[in-house]
């Protein structure tokens, strides 16, 4: 390729530059599923040679309609290992190292050792944690300026049916994953009274069988969503209930769909979203052209609609605003209410926050021994907590939650 006026100023022409940049760049691919297989192929063919991949999943038969690095005989093996093996055998000179632990098992040094991180994840929790980790790695100088050598760009892709999105996150520069948590639509849940008292849809009967009837029949046993026996039991119970009410449409396939919250997935969408991600990786690594700013979405169900939008930073973002969480709390409200707020308010969306102050832990959700020890404080009001010397008005609190790799500061303003 030759040079051109649309390329960034520091673009140095020549295929040598490109191959040099891609050859020495270390790329981490997170997820070796529908997106991961495609991402691995695309980066390997784009000239990257030093690649690592993390995925703790094993191969399931329903992966085979899109995860093209796997064959029927690989069912049950680790995705990361099979994928790494396949890419290395197909693309000469490409080195792919596989990891089969959860992403949370890796530390800052590990993530810092890569130049680019590309994620093809299927869950919010892992994305939030990864986003938080990459932000916590960034160091600042005495003037508060970012030290560029500590910044690792994250390219994140996601798909559902015919639609998907690819985005580029440059820690503290662009909006981050946490900035857009409000845009995430929560999984649909049916009100308990509907499923118990006024079921109308097959989904209501299936949810009833899964939650209420299973618990009643097997109080000691957790439903194994991957076991055909367990799923058949739920299906039969749902069917009985549906027949009793005259509700049509309970099938085994629908039962799996509802219980496992199955998201439709097809090869084509994964292919194009992964390609959009890797095109960005290539631009970030080689200055081939300007990287996108910063969110691309594709909707293919009705014609094709796409949009490239610049998502704004949330100035109160828990991860990238560098501001503590500020909560105004009544002296007469209980600690439990504040914790519920942290969990239920879309701004925080925490999973199980642990809170401690200058006077020691206020509440610990785990392990069970500690939870039990601190549980009584949940029903104390802040006035009582102060009285009993568990909390001091004006102290900052430290919150840790599985969504974040590091702790957050919480300022409570008592009124």
């Amino acid at each position, binding site marked *: *390729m*030759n040079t*051109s006026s*649309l390329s960034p100023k520091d673009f140095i022409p020549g295929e040598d530059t490109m191959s040099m940049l891609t050859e020495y760049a270390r790329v981490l691919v997170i997820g070796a599923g529908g997106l991961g297989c*495609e991402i691995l*192929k*695309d980066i390997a*063919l*784009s*000239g990257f040679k030093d690649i690592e991949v993390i995925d703790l999943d094993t191969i399931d*038969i*329903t992966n*085979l*309609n*899109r995860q*093209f690095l796997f*064959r*029927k005989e690989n069912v049950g093996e680790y995705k990361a290992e099979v994928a790494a093996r396949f890419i290395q055998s*197909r*693309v*000469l000179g490409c080195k792919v190292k596989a990891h089969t632990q959860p992403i949370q098992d890796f530390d800052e040094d590990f993530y810092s050792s890569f130049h680019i991180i590309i994620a093809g994840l299927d869950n919010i929790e892992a994305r939030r944690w990864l986003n938080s980790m990459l932000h916590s790695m960034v160091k600042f100088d005495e003037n508060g300026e970012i030290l560029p050598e500590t910044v690792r760009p994250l390219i994140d892709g996601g798909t559902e*049916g*015919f639609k998907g999105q690819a985005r580029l996150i440059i820690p503290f520069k662009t909006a981050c994953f946490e900035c857009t948590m409000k845009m995430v639509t929560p999984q649909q849940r049916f009100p308990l009274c509907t499923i118990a008292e*006024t079921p*109308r*849809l097959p989904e209501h009967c299936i949810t009833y069988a899964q939650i209420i009837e299973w618990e009643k029949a097997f109080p000691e046993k957790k439903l194994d969503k*991957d*076991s*055909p026996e367990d*799923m058949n039991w739920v299906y039969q119970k749902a069917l009985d209930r549906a027949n009793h*009410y005259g*509700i049509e449409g309970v099938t085994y*396939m629908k039962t*799996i769909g509802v219980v496992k919250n*199955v998201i*439709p*997935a*097809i*090869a*084509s*969408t994964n*292919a*194009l979203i992964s*390609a*959009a991600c*890797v*095109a*960005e990786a*290539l631009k970030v690594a080689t200055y*081939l*052209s300007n990287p*996108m700013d910063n969110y691309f979405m*594709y*909707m*293919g*169900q*009705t*014609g*094709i609609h*796409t949009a490239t939008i610049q998502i704004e930073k949330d100035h109160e973002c828990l991860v990238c605003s560098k501001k503590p969480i500020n909560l105004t709390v009544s002296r007469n409200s209980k600690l439990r209410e504040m914790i519920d707020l942290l969990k239920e308010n879309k701004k925080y969306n925490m999973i199980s926050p642990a809170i401690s102050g200058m006077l020691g832990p206020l509440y610990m959700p785990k392990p069970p021994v500690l939870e039990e020890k601190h549980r009584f404080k949940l029903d104390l009001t802040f006035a009582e907590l102060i009285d009993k010397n568990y909390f001091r008005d004006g102290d900052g609190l430290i919150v840790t939650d599985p969504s974040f790799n590091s702790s957050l500061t919480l300022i409570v303003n008592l009124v």
Partner: protein
Amino acid sequence: MATDNKYDRQLRLWGSEGQHLLNTSRVCMLGSSGLSSESLKNLVLPGIGFFTIVDDTLVTERDLGENFFVTQSDLGKPRADVVKTYLLELNPDVQGESLIQSIPSVLSNPSFFQTYSLIIACQLSFSEIRTLGAICEQNNKKLIVAKSNGLLGYLRIYCKEHLVIESKPSDKEIYDLRLYEPFPELLAYAESISLDGIQDIYHSHIPFIVLLVKFLKEWTETHGTKPRNMEEKTRFKDFVKGKSRDFFAQLNFQEAVSKAYLCFLEEKLPSEVMDILNDEKSVNADVNSEDFWICAKAVKEFMDRNQTVPLSGIFSDMTSDTNSYITLQNIYKNRADCDYIEVLQNYQRIKGTNQEPEIVRQFCKNLQTLEVTRFRSLESEFLSINAESIDEDEFEESKSLEWYLALRALDWFIQDQNREPTQDDKETLIKHTETLGKSIASEIAEEIIRFGKSELHCISAFIGGALSQEAVKLITHQYTPINNTFLFNSVHTTAVVLNL
């Protein structure tokens, strides 16, 4: 694993009917570069029936960085054959063959394409595309043409006419409740329910449909007419609200107010659907017509006779007790069944058959979202770009058209001069795009020359992904394909649809 069906994740989108059409499809792929194998990969995985790859190119060093379905040990072998072999490993259900023959020689024999349901052409030259376009137009074949150059790629669909019964629109919720003119069974049921003297819990579980039918009748009896203007409509909503016992606690009354607009509209079909029913193919449908058009005529006959549209039977969830919901659902279902039977009888008479194909029921059920798309032929596009359809005020579209024309100019140049252009040829390219309808910006010409014939894998993978999505739509007759060109520009990370 809870299921042993490897297609589970896609069956949830296009169902077993769509899967059957895929399984029995025959795809012809012209070309075997990265773009071809990426496109075909995403069709082999979901399970097309059969494919043929046509190309006499041999594997070179360059392919190793562009095409995932060739390896070092394949250097010098026919590329179509190598790609075919690796693609077949992806899905044992799929059959495939390679034809080691030059593309021009295959194009000289139009009958070759007769047995294929879809033809895909990747990275063909300008004149090859033109010849193929003409063949598909004359033989009524579905065609997708695609290109990948540097950071740019596009795909273009042509078929004379594409018929879709299940368009499954993602952007609108479909209601067919007949609240404006309730049919007798619905009216009778609504009247059988009394709102007075019942406990609050029952009052809060009467479906909004029943509420609206009752209140609209009451309103009409008092006022002598249905709500006609903005003011009356607002008053009607207040009237509905006034009937609740505790509006903020009664979800069914809230639903009634938010769905009250359904009472104000006469149940008509969208004008695009009426155009389909009135299309001359529908009006003139006979024994030999396609089932789609016979169904259209059968529905039109129903409408002329009954002065109403066959009921779809579409019924969604609403606040209700189980019993009322099921009863109401059955009232709609039975009515839809009756209407369907009449349409079916019309269909059987026109077709001269006593069979009951599923298409008739599907047609009635999806009446509101039927689609017929007719594509502009490649030949007419080459004669003149459909420039009117491109809004000059839409900056992105207008810029994208320039990029597209730049690609066309590049194709033309390579064919005309038998070499790739250099920056010295910039003016020649710009001049050529003027003859195509729009002069391109100088920096676009520079960029196109910089790209030349280079094929970047991730651009091919993107276009291959979009292409296979469109191919699945064309094969399954579900969802809405683009009309007619999709351009991806990774220089600016934009993608647009152009109707050329």
